[in-house]
Each structure stands twice: as structure tokens, then as C-alpha cells.
């Protein structure tokens, strides 16, 4: 049986990160983009915890992960509020077409 | 010594006159003219007072204590600017035997030129204001003993001259004025460079013992004042005194004007109104030779000695070349202009001899040429006023129509030819005596003697073409001289005859100074031996 090592965690997190990036780039729906961002954040969290666990850094990684989770929650709340407002204004949440600020 | 600053008065009375002229309303032409006449007249009176109080035994030249009527005080003082040190420039006036004749000449010629300006009719106010400013500039050059002050006066006279030619001149006045201006400015630039070079090469010790850079001409003549590393210091083995000498000489040579820098002269003369031609020939040309004697000679004695042959060579070229060019002219005024070139050659030749007789002759020739040429230009002016032409071939037989005028012409012409008994001869003879005595320039002197012959040839030819022969009937209405013209010509004629018979009147003034200059050049400056090249 194979010992679960740092590499495995990193592979999982990079997969998550890639999915996140993919989501951000390809989706036009603002909610989907937000989900992509959440995926990236969580990929980072896995890295924090993994490095903290394997590289003898004490509890710093875990603390950082906790901060990120809290931040992500706050961010998700604000972002969803914005998306809601956007939907109210434009009747859709397609990021490509929200160009009002550009003008 | 007098109880009042005579040199300052001499120099700035015209400026006072100018202020009065500027305050007068435009249409008061008569008052303006009389104001100028008064100002220049006062100048003549002061010059005579100066002559009467003059000490004939004071040498001057390089020795401050034997200068006369000295006025010296701090003019500009800027304490301690980093690497420049303290800048101090003196207002330093004084005369000696080299400058007194020129002061006198300037006063006389300015007065006579004012008289001759009586016919000026357009923008009288501007004319006389500029004229008086010009007068101040000229006088200042001859009395300044500080290089900076000298340069200020030198430039001061340039601008009025430019306008006087450019506004009141003849048909090609703009060309002539700009040519004069640029040519002279060109020379001034050289002078400026040398002046600054000298400034940073010599230090004067002040009363409190501190050493400062100096523009004082007399301090610059004393080689113990030079710093060890100044670029124009004789102690600096890599100095460029030779180049500086050439540059300075070129600056003065343009004014003389020395071949090949002379071509501004005929144009300026031909286009300038008569009084300005008189000033130009009578005084301005002398500033060049005076500058050489006052500045180039005593500050660069060793190079002067090295180059005396070349100075004599240019003197000879001026004499012969000017005379031959004069012979070919068809315009009366241009002929006189070229004769000036020729006569200034004698001054150069005399100076080149570095001998008492030669330099005395040169200074006397400066004075005599001033009076004689002034008279010649007045003569041209008289005939031009009446006939509005200057072509030599347009006249003929005027001796019958204007006998008195012809009499004055004869005096002036023969003075220019160098007839003994008239002033021109004395100075020419002294120049030759001086130059012939120096073996290295003897051959040049012999060739120069041809100038006597050529001078006679073109002058007599001119006399014949204009005054002799059958009267050209076209001119049978010309009037002889009027009172004003008498007043211009008589004093000059009297001076010419008087100095021809009794030249000592002028020679005694300059002789002591010339002797000390010669002595300085040959002995007193023996330490000036490091040459720039």
C-alpha cells in the first residue's frame, strides 16, 4: 500500500486549481466564475495544510487555511451580493456583457 | 591735479547732453542741435583744460603713479563666489602720453562733426542722442585703464554707430551698417575671450593683502602678478599667449582697419552721412591702433618683439595696397576711404619699429590722420551737399567756381600727400626714421616709401579731375563756402599747419610716455621671455 505523501496532496490541489482556472476562463456566468475562484482558494488551502503537515512548519499552515476559509466566505457573500445586483440591473449575469464601467 | 573729476566729465558730458536732447520735444530741432554743440564744445574746453594742466614729464604706460588725472574706485564687487573668488572691477580712468592726444582728437573731431551735422533733417532728436552716446563711447575707450571698462566703452560705441549709418546713411546703408556691425563685433568677441583669459591668469594684491583676479590693465602688465598656472600666464609652460596675442591683434586690426580686414571701411564710409564718416575716420580707426599700443604691446611685450616684422609687413601692405586701390576709385568718398587704409599703414609701420621715433611718429600720425582725413571727408561732404554726386569724373574746373574751397582742399590734399610744412609729413617722416633704423624691417620700410609716390599720384590726379581744367558748366551755380563750413574747416586747417611747423606741441605730450613704453618693451619686460609657441 502506498503511503500518502505530499505529492499526492499537491496533485489534488493542482487539479482543483486547474479546474478553478478552467471555470473562470470558460464560464460566462458570474456565479460559475465565483465557483471557480472558490475552487482556486480551496486548492491553496489544501497546499497550506499539506505543507504545514509535511514540512514541519507547526500550525501556521492550518491558521492560514482558516483565514482563507473565512475570507472566502466573506468574499462569496459580497460577490454574490454584487452578482445579485448585477442581475437586478442587467437581467443576466453574463460577465462578457457587463461593460458599463468601461464607458 | 584738478579739484574735479575731469576725465569723468569729459566722458559723460555727452551723456548728459543726450538726456537733455531726449527730454526736448521732437520738433525743437534747433535746441537739440545747440545742446549737442554745447556738450561737445564743453568737451573741447575740458580737453584744453586737461592739456594745460598736463605734466609733460610723467611717463604713465605701465606705472600707475605717473598716470595723470586718475580716478579709481570699486565699481563692481561680488564677494566670494566659490571657484571665481571675489569679483571686483574698478572704475579706473587716467591718461598718459598715449591717450592724451587721442582725447584731444576725440573732443575736436566730435565738435566739428556736430557742426557738420547741422544739415541732418530727419529725426533730429534720435540722431543727436545717438551721436552723443557715440561720443561718450569713444572718449571712454581712450581714458579707461581697466580692461572691463575699456570693453564696455568699446561696445558702447558700436550700437549708436550701427544706427547712425543704418538710418541716416546712403542708398546701401543697411548693408554697410550690418557689415560694420558684424565685422566689429567679430573683433570684439576675440577681445572678450582674451580679456577673460587674462582675468583668470593674473591676480592683483589689494590693500588688505588679499589676492583677487583683475581686469586692471596696469596690473596685467606687471608679470609678477601672473599666477603659475593661468592659461595666459608667462609662467605656465603650456600657455597660449601667442594665440591670445593674435586674437587680440585681430580684434584691433579690424578697427584699424588692417588688410585683409579692411573691406567694411569703404562701404561704411560711402554710405555713412558726412559727420559720421568724419567720426569714423577721425576717431574710430584710431581706437584699433591705440588698443594695440595700450593693451597688446605692454601686456604681451615678448610676442610683440617676436612679431614686429609681421606688423611692419601688414603696415607696408596697407600703405601700398590702400594707395593703389585708392588710385582706381571713381567715387570721391571711396577714394578718401582707401587713402585712410593707406595712411593707417604708416601707423602700423611706425608702431612695428618699437623705437621712440617710430612710435612717436605713429601716435602723431594717428592724430594727424584724424584731422586730415576729417577735413577730407568734410570736403567731400561740402561738394556732395551742393551737387549730390561724388563721381570724380562728374566735375572739373571747380577751382574757378569755388576758389576758397579749393584753397582748403589744396591744404588738405597736400597734407595727405605728406608735404613738409603740413602735419602729415612730420609724422610720416618720423615713422620712416623710426622704422628705417631697425634693421629687420628696413627693407619693408624702403618698399613702403613707394607709398609717398603713390599718394602724390592719386591725390594730385583727383585734384586735377575735380578742380582743375575748364569749369564744367553744369556746376556754375555752386556757391563757395558758407560760415558754418568755414567754422568746420578753419580749425582743422590751422591745426594741420601748426603741427606741421611746430610738431613738438604734440610730440612733447607723448614723448615721455613713448620713451617709457619703448623702454618697457625692450628692457623693463625682459622677464617676459617664455613664448607661447
Amino acid at each position, binding site marked *: 500500500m502506498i503511503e500518502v505523501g505530499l505529492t499526492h496532496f499537491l496533485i489534488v490541489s493542482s487539479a482543483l486549481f486547474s479546474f478553478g*482556472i478552467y471555470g*473562470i*476562463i*470558460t464560464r460566462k456566468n458570474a456565479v460559475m466564475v465565483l465557483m471557480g475562484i472558490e475552487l482556486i482558494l480551496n486548492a491553496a488551502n489544501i497546499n497550506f495544510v499539506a505543507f504545514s503537515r509535511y514540512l514541519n512548519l507547526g500550525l501556521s499552515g492550518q491558521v492560514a487555511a482558516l483565514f482563507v476559509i473565512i475570507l472566502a466566505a466573506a468574499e462569496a457573500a459580497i460577490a454574490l451580493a454584487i452578482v445579485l445586483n448585477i442581475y437586478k440591473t442587467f437581467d443576466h449575469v453574463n*460577465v462578457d456583457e457587463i*461593460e458599463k464601467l*468601461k464607458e | 591735479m584738478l579739484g574735479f573729476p575731469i576725465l569723468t566729465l569729459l566722458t559723460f558730458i555727452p551723456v548728459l547732453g543726450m538726456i537733455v536732447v531726449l527730454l526736448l520735444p521732437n520738433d525743437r530741432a534747433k535746441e537739440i542741435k545747440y545742446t549737442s554743440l554745447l556738450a561737445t564744445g564743453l568737451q573741447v574746453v575740458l580737453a584744453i583744460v586737461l592739456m594745460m594742466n598736463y605734466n609733460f614729464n610723467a611717463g604713465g604706460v605701465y606705472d600707475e603713479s605717473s598716470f595723470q588725472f586718475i580716478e579709481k574706485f570699486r565699481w563692481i564687487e561680488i564677494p566670494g563666489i566659490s571657484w571665481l573668488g571675489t569679483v571686483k572691477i574698478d572704475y579706473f580712468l587716467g591718461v598718459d602720453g598715449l591717450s592724451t592726444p587721442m582725447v584731444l582728437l576725440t573732443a575736436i573731431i566730435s565738435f566739428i562733426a556736430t557742426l557738420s551735422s547741422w544739415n541732418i533733417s530727419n529725426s533730429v532728436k534720435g540722431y543727436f542722442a545717438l551721436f552723443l552716446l557715440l561720443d561718450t563711447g569713444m572718449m571712454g575707450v581712450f581714458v579707461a585703464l581697466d580692461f572691463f571698462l575699456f570693453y564696455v566703452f568699446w561696445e558702447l560705441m558700436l550700437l549708436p554707430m550701427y544706427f547712425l549709418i543704418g538710418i541716416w546713411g546712403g542708398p546701401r546703408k543697411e548693408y554697410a551698417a550690418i*557689415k560694420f556691425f*558684424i565685422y566689429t563685433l567679430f573683433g570684439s568677441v576675440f577681445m572678450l575671450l582674451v580679456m577673460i583669459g587674462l582675468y583668470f591668469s593674473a591676480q592683483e594684491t589689494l590693500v588688505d593683502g588679499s589676492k583677487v583676479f583683475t581686469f586692471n590693465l596696469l596690473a596685467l602688465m606687471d608679470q609678477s602678478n601672473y599666477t603659475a598656472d593661468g592659461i595666459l600666464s608667462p609662467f605656465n609652460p603650456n600657455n597660449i599667449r601667442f594665440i591670445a596675442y593674435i586674437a587680440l591683434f585681430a580684434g584691433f586690426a579690424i578697427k584699424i582697419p588692417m*588688410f*585683409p580686414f579692411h*573691406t567694411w571701411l569703404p562701404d561704411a564710409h560711402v554710405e555713412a552721412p558726412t559727420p559720421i564718416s568724419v567720426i569714423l575716420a577721425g576717431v574710430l580707426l584710431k581706437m584699433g591702433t591705440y588698443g594695440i599700443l595700450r593693451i597688446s604691446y605692454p601686456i604681451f611685450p615678448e610676442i610683440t618683439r617676436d612679431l614686429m616684422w609681421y606688423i611692419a609687413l601688414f603696415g607696408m601692405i596697407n600703405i601700398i*595696397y590702400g594707395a*593703389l*586701390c585708392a*588710385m*582706381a*576709385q571713381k567715387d570721391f568718398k571711396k577714394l578718401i576711404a582707401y587713402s585712410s587704409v593707406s595712411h593707417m599703414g604708416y601707423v602700423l609701420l611706425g608702431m612695428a619699429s618699437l*623705437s*621712440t*621715433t617710430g612710435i*612717436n611718429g605713429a601716435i602723431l600720425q594717428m592724430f594727424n590722420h584724424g584731422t586730415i582725413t576729417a577735413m577730407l571727408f568734410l570736403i567731400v561732404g561740402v561738394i556732395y551737399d551742393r551737387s549730390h554726386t561724388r563721381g570724380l569724373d562728374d566735375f572739373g*574746373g571747380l*577751382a*574757378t567756381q569755388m576758389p576758397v574751397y579749393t584753397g582748403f582742399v589744396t591744404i588738405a590734399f*597736400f597734407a595727405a600727400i605728406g*608735404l*613738409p*610744412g603740413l602735419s602729415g*609729413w612730420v609724422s610720416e*617722416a618720423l615713422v*620712416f626714421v623710426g622704422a*628705417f633704423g631697425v634693421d629687420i624691417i628696413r627693407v619693408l*620700410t*624702403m618698399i613702403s*616709401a*613707394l607709398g*609717398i*609716390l*603713390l599718394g*602724390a*599720384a592719386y591725390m*594730385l*590726379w583727383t585734384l*586735377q579731375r575735380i*578742380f*582743375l*581744367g*575748364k*569749369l564744367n558748366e553744369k556746376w556754375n551755380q555752386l556757391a563757395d563756402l558758407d560760415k558754418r563750413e568755414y567754422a568746420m574747416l578753419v580749425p582743422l586747417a590751422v591745426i594741420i599747419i601748426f603741427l606741421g611747423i611746430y*610738431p*613738438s606741441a604734440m*610730440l*612733447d605730450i607723448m*614723448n*615721455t610716455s613713448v*620713451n617709457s613704453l619703448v*623702454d618697457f618693451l*625692450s*628692457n623693463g619686460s625682459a622677464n617676459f621671455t617664455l613664448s607661447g609657441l
Partner: protein
Amino acid sequence: MQEITFLQLSITVLFLPLLSFLIVILYGKKFPKLYLLETGSIILGFALSVLLMIFKISQQLNNTLSFNMTWIDFGNVPMLGHLKIELGIMLDNVTVLMLFVVYLISMLVHIFSLEYMRGDRLYNRYFAYLGLFTFSMLGIVLTDNLLMMYIFWELVGLSSYLLIGFWYEKKSASDAGKKAFIVNRVGDIGFFLGILIIFSAYNTFSFAKVFEQIGMGVLPFDSGAWLTAAGILIFMGAVGKSAQFPLHVWLPDAMEGPTPVSALIHAATMVAAGVYLVTRVFVMLTADAMLIIAVVGAFTSFVAATIALTQNDIKKVLAYSTVSQLGYMIMSLGVGAYAFAFFHLVTHAFFKACLFLGSGSVIHAMHHEQDIRNMGGLRKKLPITYLTFLISTLAISGVPLTSGFLSKDGILAGTLAFGSLTGHWLIPAFGFIVALMTAFYMFRLVIVTFHGVPKNKEKFDHAHESPFVMVMPLVVLSALSLFIWYTPLPHAPDAGWFISDWVKTPQTVVPENLRFDFMKSSAPGEINGEVVHSASYTEALHHAHYPAMALSLIVAGLGILLAFLMYQWKKIDPDLVAGKVKPLYDFSLNKWYIDEFYDAAVIKFTLKFSGFLAWFDNTIIDGIVNVSAVITRLASKIVDLFDIYIVDGFVNFSAFISGFIGLSFRRMQTGKVQTYLVFVVFSILILLIIINPF
């Protein structure tokens, strides 16, 4: 008489004419009678000069009186010590004799002119000019130094210029005046350079001091050649003033002036100034200088005589005869016959003045006709003029009992002696040939003018003898052309007082090695207890005396005979002779083409050259100035263009480039976060690939 009185008197005599000149020239217009004042002052001056001469010769015969004053004082000159220029006067026998001659002739000419010039528009001015001339001439005579000699030398030139061009409305007259002045100037340059050599060497102009230093062996620039040069250069002044070849061309032209002027200036006095100058510097002439002087004199007398043979203008003939006689005097000085040269100067002054005034009388009578071919037979109409003219002609031809015989004979003897001592036989040969020609052309002149039949009947009929004031001077002058005034014996000039007592040849001062052999002091320098010029020369002169006299009598007789044969008795047809030697005749008639030569070679050349230089000045020198101005303006134009197109262009170009780049990259800026993110991701990937940390 005290010495100081002599000097006061001579100064008075000198300045009297100047004073009257000034008064007349300034007030002549207002007071038309002022010419009388001028004439009066000359007569007074003459009286004083006679007094001066008598007292000098009776009381101070062998003394030289001099007086000088400082003119210019240079003080203590570096290297030279105390230097001053002095002017002064000197009285010796030569001076007082010259004073007398000048004043006498001047006075007679004044008197003659009273009538001759009557009615002239500028009558007063004419007399003023004569006064000026007299003053300047007296200055030359009285001076004791070279500088003053030069001063008055030039003043004489001026008065000559004024008087030749007196009728200035005539082109030929003003031309002649100008020519005289300029040609004289050529000589004067030489004279002046000579003076400069002397002054540079001795720091003084005074004759006495210069001679003293030369006598002590001080040479100019330590070389005998320079002394010779100084002598020759000073002599050049004489070449100009005394109309010696090649500068003689001005004198014949000078005949454009009024005839009395020709008599005074261009025959008797001014032209003799050159000779006088050479007598003054005689003692410092080296052998080489003397030889050149002799050759110039001989050649001049020959050239002028050949030209005089064929001239038809009465004054031209006299003018060339003057040149020829001046050549005689110069030659005489050159061969060392000092006393005879001065003697001839005096006698020539009288008879030549007489001839000129006589010709003036003829011209006056003939109403300004000067061509002798239109005269003839005037003997009957003008008996006194004829008689005086004849006497003077006899004198100039060297016929016994005249003064000219004495002086010419002396000169010819001098040349013979010189020839025998040095072997230069050509000089006496020239002398005798010229004597022959002189006798011939002078008698030709007399015969054609006064003898024969009148050629121009109308003018002849109107001719009449001149009034007293014109005839009187003629009589006085012709009387002075007789021998009796100079010596009791008509064949021996040195038997009289003039040569043996009054004028003595001075001892030369030049160093021995620069003298002629016969002048070396090794030969005893004393004869009859008196120091003379040179013993062997005096000896030779004595030996030459009778041969010279015989020869000169023969040639003079031959010349006169030939003239009578050709013109009086018409035995020989002059035209036929002229035709036979046509080229020679033309050569003489055209004055050896010297004027033409000068015109082509000197005047034309100078004018061309001056024209070229004026062109050069105007086009090249001024051209350089103007071209440099044009170049400067062109350069400024170019800089302007550079500024507009290059500097400014660069600025614009860089703006354009950045604009272009901006435009081309604008597309990438979509404003979409996703696009940017793609760039970021790919950039990171690319960076990873490049850096390749693995």
C-alpha cells in the same frame, strides 16, 4: 658786422618772401594792388642779400657761420641716449652767392612779370606763388642740415607745381604740374631714403656733424657700400629736381607754365637746387658714387642735347638745353670739378634766365606764338631782345669773353683731367660732343627766330619791342654773362676771385679706401699753402686747361659754323639732312620716346595694376567677406531645415511610432478579465518553460 647780425639778416632774408606770400594769398582778392608789396619785399630782400654777400666775403671769407635750434626733442631715448632733431641755417660763401643769384633772378623775374602777366585773372596769386617759391628756394640755400633741405626741397616742388599749373584751366598745364610733382617725388623717395641712412647711422641731420663722423671713419651700418648707397640715393633727389636722365621728362613739359616762371624756376634756380644739393654733400661721396654721378650727368647732357637739335618750340629748345647744361654741372661734380660746377651753376643761371626771359619777350611780342618756324626776322623788330639773346647764346655756346666760356671750359678741363687720371675717357668725349651740339642748336634757334625773313607776316607786323620793365632784366642778365664779373683775364677762370677765393673745393671726408686713387691723401694735399681737394687732380686740371680750351673753341666754332651753313646761308638743306638720317631724326624729335616708354611701362602698368587691385579688393577680399556671409546664411538655412525635418521630425516620428505600437496592441486589451487571465496563465506557463526550474 657781428656774427649774430649775419644770422638775423639771413633769417630776415629767408622769411621776407614767406610773409609777403601769406599776406598776398589771404588778402589778394580784397586789395588788387598787393602784388606791389610782394615785389617790393623781394627787392628789399635782394638789397639785404647783396649786403650779406658783401659783408660775408669781405669780413668772414673763410668762415662758416651757423646757427641752429631744437625742433623736436625726444629726450632720453632708450638705447640711443639723448636724441633731438635740429633745424638751422649755415652761411658760407656758396650760400651767400646762391642767395644773391636766387634773389637777383627772382627780382628780375618779378619785374619782368609785372608787364608779362598784366591782365591775368589771378595776377596777385601769381606773385604770391613767386614769393612762396623764393622762400622755399632760399630755405634750400640756407639750410645746414639734410632734413630742412628735404623740407624746402618739397616746398619748392609745391611752388613749382602751383606755378606750372598756374593756368590750370588748360589741361596740358595741369598735367604738366602733376607730372613735375610726381616725377620729382620719385627722386625724392631716393633722397629721403638717403637721409634715412644717414640719420640711422649718425642720429643727426646736420651736414657738419655727419661729415665729422664720416671723417672719423664711422660708416653707416659699418659698410662702405652703405655710404655709397647713401650718396647715390641723395643724388637721386638731384636727379629729380635737376632733371637728370631718366627723370628729366618733367622739365620740358613744365614749359606749360608762364615763361617768366620757366626762367626763374625751370632754368635758373630750382633746377639748380639738385646741383646745389650735390655740392653740399660732395665731401661724403665715395668714388663709386661720384662715378655714377658723372656718368648720369654726361649721359643726360648728351640725351638732352640730341633732343634739342630738332625741337621747334622755342621754349622746348631752351628746356632741353637746360637739361643738357644741368647734366654738365652734375658731370662736373662727378669728376670732382666742384668749383667749376658751382661756377657754371651761377653763370648758367644768368644766361639761361636771360634766354628764357628773352624768349618770353619774343612770345609776348608774337602774341603767344612759340613755334620758331613761324618766326624769323625778328631782329629788326626786337633789337634789344635780340642783342641780349645773342650774348647769352654766345655764353651758352662757350665763346670767349663770355662767362659761359669760363665755366664750360673749366668743366671740360675737369673731365679731361678725370679721363687722364682714371681712364674714363668717355666722359670728356660726351662733354665735347655736347659742346658741339649746344653751339649748333642754340645758333639754330637764334638764326631761325631772329634772322631771315618773317614766316608769319601778320604776327610779325604786330610785333614790337617790349616795354622797359621787360627789357631791363634782359640787359642786366646779359651783362652778367660777360667775363668781367668773374675774372680779369678772359681765358683764365682761376685767375679771378670767384674760383680761387670764394669757392673752393672742400676736402673729402670719405675713408681712403673708398676714394679715387687721385684723391688719396698720400698725395700731398697742399698747393700754395692751401688745402685743396686733391693735389694730383689740381695738377691734372692745370695740364688739361689749354687742350680743353683749344678743343672747346674748335667744337663751339664748328657748331656755330654748321648752324650758319644750314640756316643762315642755306648751303646745306636741313630737311635733306633730316631725311638722310630719318630714324635718328625721328628719334630725336620724339625725345627718344622716353615719355611713350614711361606712359606704357609705368603709368599704364600702375593704373592697370591699381585697377586690378581694386577689382581684387572688391571681388576677392570683399567677396570672401560676402561669401562668408552667404555661407553663414546658407548654413543657418540648413540648420533651419535640419531643425524642421530632422530634429522635429524625430520627435514627431517617435510620437508616431508609439501611436502605431499603441494601435497595434490595442486589440489585446479586450477589457475581459478572462482574456487577461488567459494571458497570465499562458505567460506563466511560458515563463516556466523558459526558466525550467525542474
